């Protein structure tokens, strides 16, 4: 396995498929700088019409909840069904919710 030290920083790639839709995480790439990051993201993830807009973010700029912290973060929501808007009927006109 080749060393990854000379491949540059890790960046996360987000793609917007259509105007108005949210950017979705597509994966990650290596790059030395912003220009290279956006180009590598384009070459690795968007060559088959996956999207119309692209974000790259340095992976170390992302603040994340680790697996060991997950229970304290998320479990309290489990038994509070009233927090979900599932008791309402969606109007027919609403396409995405």
């Amino acid at each position: 396995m080749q060393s990854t030290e000379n491949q540059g920083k890790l960046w996360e790639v987000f793609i917007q498929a259509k105007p108005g839709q949210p950017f979705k995480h597509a994966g990650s790439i290596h790059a030395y700088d912003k220009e290279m990051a956006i180009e590598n993201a384009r070459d690795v993830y968007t060559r088959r019409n996956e999207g119309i807009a692209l974000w790259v973010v340095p992976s170390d700029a992302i603040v994340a909840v680790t697996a060991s912290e997950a229970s304290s973060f998320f479990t309290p929501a489990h038994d509070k069904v009233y927090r979900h808007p599932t008791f309402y009927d969606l109007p027919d006109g609403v396409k995405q919710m």
Partner: protein
Amino acid sequence: MDDKVKYYLEIADNALILSYRLSENSSKGPFLEEDLACTNIALDLIGQAESLYNEAAKLNGKGQSGDDLAYRRSERDYFNTILVEQPNKDFAYIMVRQFFVDVFNYYFHTELSKSRDKYLAAVATKALKEATYHIRRSAEWMLRFGNGTEESNRRAQDAIDELWKYTGELFNASEADLNLRESGVSIDLKEVQSHWNLKVNEVLYLAHLKKPNNEFQLPGGKNGIHSEYMGLILTEMQYLPSKYPDAIW
């Protein structure tokens, strides 16, 4: 050979042989992203070559296919510039070669998209979109090499010094090219050259790389006179169609 067919082949061969060199790098890139980027460019170039070969085969009217033109000619019948056949000595060579050709292609296709030959103009318009991305990538690599480490600067400079003598040929108009000027099919390479010089000067300046002083130039490819590498490329590239003439996908 008809002037128009010759002109088509010059452009197509340049794209095909460079794409061959780039695809040689497939699975050998410095890392995954660059590996994919190089093969993506190779694919763009093959697409351009294919359109031109198919049309040239029709114009030629000898019952050949585009594939026949791509894979069944002998060395002297290929008209690509010597620059694109130069080997992938290291990554700096690959990118410097690419940079020189990308800058050329960008301005060449800009002009060619105004050709009075509708087919050429259409191919050039499509190629220009691709070239716009290619030039962006390779120009940034020049900056990265030149302003990177001492070693990256040295390697890029070595490649520039070595490949410089093959760049002049890009702007030498062949006889076929000149014959097609009046009808507005071919385009003025002098125009392309002045843009090329400006852009290359600008990028090399920003990258702290030097333009070689040596003005010696080594042309030949457009007349079918190639470097020693061309025979090796064709031997490998034509192996399958020679050994299995009826092979299809």
